C-alpha cells in the first residue's frame, strides 16, 4: 500500500507531462507552423456552377483546372502525343515493298509525373505512356526492333494479322535482351500494341501500351487526325484506378483544350487500354460522329455521340463541327470523367479570321 514518495511524485509529473503533450499535439498547437501574413492569396473553386470560391494563403490543389501545373518530368506531353504519328525509317525492298523500321525500348525504372504533383513508377516504351504511335500503309513490311532496357522481362504483342512467332506472346525478352518483330501491315485499321508478359494487368496498367495504325492503300479523306488512348493509373495498388484520362494525364485537355477548325473533318483513332474497369466510353458534346469500329471498314456503321468499349477495343471517330465554341468530350461513366477522363475541343472559326485578315489587307490597299 505504501509507495515511496519520490516514485509517486515522478509518476504524477510524468503523467501530467504526457497528457499535456498529447492534448497540445492533438489540438494542433504542436508543432507550431508560422503563418505568413504577407503570403500571396490565391483563389480556388468557383469554376463549377454552384461551387463557391475560396481564398487562401496556402497552396492550391487543383488538377482539373489550371490551378496546378505539370512539371517537366511528365509521363507524356499530351499536346505533342495527340497528333504525332511515327512512320518509321522507310526504305524500299527489291520487290517494291515498303519497309518500315521502328525501335521500341522498354523501361520499368522511371518515376514520372502522371498528374500535377503525383509521381508514379511507369513502365514505358521509348520513355512515354502511351508509347509512340506506329503508322504504316496496308501491305508494308513492319520491322520492330525491341530492346528491353528494364529490370523485368518484357515483350511486344501487336494486334493484327501475323505469323505465330511474331505474336510476341511466347518470347519473353529478358532485361538487356533484344528481339526483332517482322510482319506485314494487314488489315487496315487501328490496333493496340502492348507488353504481353504476366502479370499482364500490371504490365499494361503501368504503361506498356500504344497505338498501331494501318492505313488503307487508298488513303482516307484528309482530316485533322489525332490519337486518343483511354487509360488510367492505379497508384495505390488496390486494383482500382485512381486516375483516368485520354493520353495519360487527367484533365489535361480541360486546361489545354484541343483546337480544331470549324467545318474541318476531325478523325480520332480511339483505343481503350484501361485496366481494372470493365468498360470505358467516349461521349462527344454538341455533335455526332461517324463510328468505324476497329477502323477495318471505310463505311461507318453508326452515327452517334456515344461509344462503349471493352479492354482492347478501338474505333475510328469522324466528325465536323459546324458551330464554333468550346465542347466537352468525356467518358460517360461519370466516375471516370470526374477522376480525369474529361477534355475540351475549342472549335475555331478560321474562315472568319481569314475573311477578317482578307478585309484588313484589302483595306490597306
Amino acid at each position, binding site marked *: *500500500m*505504501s*509507495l515511496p514518495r519520490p516514485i*509517486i511524485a515522478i*509518476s*504524477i509529473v*510524468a*503523467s501530467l507531462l*504526457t*497528457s499535456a503533450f*498529447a*492534448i497540445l*499535439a*492533438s*489540438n*494542433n498547437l*504542436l*508543432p507550431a*507552423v508560422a*503563418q*505568413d501574413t504577407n503570403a500571396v492569396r*490565391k483563389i*480556388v*473553386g*468557383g*469554376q463549377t456552377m*454552384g*461551387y*463557391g*470560391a*475560396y481564398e*487562401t*494563403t*496556402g*497552396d*492550391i*490543389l*487543383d*488538377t*482539373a*483546372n489550371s*490551378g*496546378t501545373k505539370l512539371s517537366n518530368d511528365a509521363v507524356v506531353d499530351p499536346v505533342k502525343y495527340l497528333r504525332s504519328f511515327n512512320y518509321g525509317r522507310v526504305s524500299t525492298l527489291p520487290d517494291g515493298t515498303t519497309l518500315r523500321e521502328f525501335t521500341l525500348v522498354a523501361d520499368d525504372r522511371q518515376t514520372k509525373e*502522371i*498528374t*500535377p*504533383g*503525383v*509521381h*508514379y513508377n511507369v513502365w514505358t516504351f521509348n520513355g512515354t505512356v502511351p508509347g509512340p504511335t506506329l503508322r504504316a500503309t496496308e501491305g508494308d513490311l513492319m520491322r520492330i526492333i525491341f530492346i528491353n532496357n528494364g529490370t523485368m522481362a518484357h515483350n511486344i504483342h501487336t494486334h493484327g494479322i501475323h505469323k505465330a512467332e511474331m505474336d510476341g506472346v511466347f518470347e519473353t525478352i529478358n532485361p538487356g535482351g533484344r528481339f526483332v518483330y517482322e510482319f506485314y501491315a494487314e488489315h487496315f485499321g487501328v490496333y493496340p500494341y502492348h507488353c504481353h508478359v504476366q502479370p499482364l494487368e500490371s504490365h499494361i496498367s503501368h504503361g506498356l501500351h500504344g497505338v498501331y495504325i494501318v492505313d488503307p492503300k487508298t488513303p482516307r479523306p484528309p482530316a485533322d487526325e489525332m490519337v486518343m488512348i483511354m487509360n488510367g*493509373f492505379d*497508384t*495505390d495498388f488496390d486494383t482500382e484506378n*485512381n486516375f483516368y484520362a485520354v493520353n495519360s494525364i*487527367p*484533365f489535361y485537355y480541360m486546361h489545354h483544350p484541343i483546337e480544331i477548325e470549324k467545318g474541318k473533318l476531325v478523325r480520332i483513332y480511339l483505343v481503350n487500354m484501361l485496366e481494372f474497369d470493365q468498360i470505358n466510353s467516349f461521349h462527344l458534346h454538341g455533335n455526332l460522329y461517324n463510328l468505324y469500329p476497329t477502323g477495318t471498314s471505310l463505311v461507318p456503321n453508326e452515327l452517334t455521340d456515344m461509344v462503349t468499349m471493352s479492354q482492347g477495343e478501338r474505333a475510328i471517330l469522324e466528325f465536323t463541327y459546324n458551330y464554333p465554341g468550346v465542347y466537352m468530350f468525356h467518358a460517360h461513366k461519370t*466516375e471516370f470523367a*470526374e*477522376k*480525369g477522363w474529361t477534355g475540351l475541343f475549342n472549335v475555331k472559326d478560321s474562315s472568319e479570321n481569314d475573311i477578317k485578315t482578307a478585309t484588313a489587307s484589302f483595306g490597306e490597299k
Partner: protein
Amino acid sequence: MIDKMEREEDKLGHSAGRTALSATKMVAMALIPIVILGVMIAYLLGPAKSFLNTGIPLPEVTIETIEFQEGKVIALIRNTGPVDVTIAQADINDRIHPAAIEPSKEVPRLATAKVVIPFPWKAGDPYVIGVTTSDGIRFSKGVTAAAPAATPSIGQASFFALVGTYVGIIPVLIGLLWYPFIRRLGMNAYRFFLSLTAGLLVFLGMDAIIESNKIASQNVADVFNAQILIAMTAILSFLALLYVSRKLVDRAQTRTVSESTSRVQINQQELLVKPVAIALMVSIGIGFHNFGEGLAIGAAVVFGQIALSTFLIIGFTLHNTTEGLAIVAPLAKIGSARVLVRKLALMGLIAGAPTIVGTWIGGFFFSPIAAIVFLSIGAGAIFQVVYAIYSWMMGKSDTNKTKTMFSDAYAIAGFAVGMLIMYATGLLVPS
C-alpha cells in the same frame, strides 16, 4: 538474515561511495552513458545512414476531423507517417475536387494541414473525404451524416450546458436522495449496497477503458500509441488518487490525534473521516468519468454521430442516477447524522458538473487524445475508489469475518446487481 546482509552491504557501499567519490565524479558517472549515446546517434545519422536505411518508408496521412461549413468542407489532416509528405489533391466521395491546403501542401512529420474544399454539401448526407499524396496513395475518412459545424456561441454553449445538466448534474443529485434510505439499512443490506456501488464503479471503469480504446482505434493515428496511453494514464491516476486519499485521511487523523488523546475518540473520528474521504474520492472519480462522457456527447452531437433525443437524455439520466448512489453509500454508517446537506450537494456537483465542461470542450474543440486521457484518468480513479471501498469494508468488519468478506453472499449479490443495473441502463444509451 537476508535483511542483515543487505544492511551490511548498504553500509559498505555507502562508506566506499562517500570516501572515494567527489560530486563531479558522480556527475561524470551519470553523464558518460549519455555522451556515448550521443556519439552513437551521431554515427547512426552520419556514416551509418547509407547501409542501415533499407526498405521504403511508407507515407501515412490521418484525417483527424472533418467540418462542414457553408459551401465548403474542411478536413484537418496530420502526417502520421515516418516521412514528410506532399499532398497532391483532395477528393469528396472519391471524385477529385479543386481544393486549398493551408499552410502548405508540404506537410512535415506529425504536422497538420487544413484542406478546404469548396463543395455544396447537403446536411444529413454521408461523405467520404480523401487526400492523395505525391506518390499516388489515397487516405480517406468517412462521415455518416454531414452536420453544420458548431461554432462557439452563447446559444450553443447554453444548449450544451442544458444537456450537461440533464445528463450529469440532475441524475447524480437524484441518486443522492437515497441517503436516508441507505442510512436505515441493516448491516447485511448495507454491505449489499456498498458492493453494489463497487459493481457500478467497476462497470464504469471498464466502460471508460473500452470507450477510450474505441476512440483510440477510430480517431487517433498509430504513431501516438494511444492504447498504451490509456493503460499508462489509468495506472498513474490510480496511483495518484491512492496517494491523495491516503494524505487526506492521514491529515484528518493527525489533527484528531493532536486534539484529543482518547482512543475512543480517534476511532470515532476515523469512522467519520474515512467514509467522507471515500465519498469525495468517488465523486472525483465519477467527475472525471462524466467529463469524458461529456466530451463524447459534445463531439458526437457536433459530428452528427448521434441525434440528441428525449429518449437518449432519459437513458443517460437513468444510467447516471446510480452514480449518486455510489457517492452516498460510503457515508451512510458514519454514526452521527451530521453529514451536511451542503457537503453532499458539493460532492454531487463535483461528480456531475464536469459533464457540462466536457460537452463544451468536446463540442467546440474536440480532441480525441484529450477524450482518451480524461476517460482513462476516470477509469484509474474509479478503480482506486473500488479498492478504497473494499479495504474500508474489510477494516470495518470483524477480524473473523474479514476472510469471508468477498465470498459473502450479500457482497457478491450487490456487486453483481450493480454491474447488471449499469448494463441494463447502458442499453438505453448508444455507444
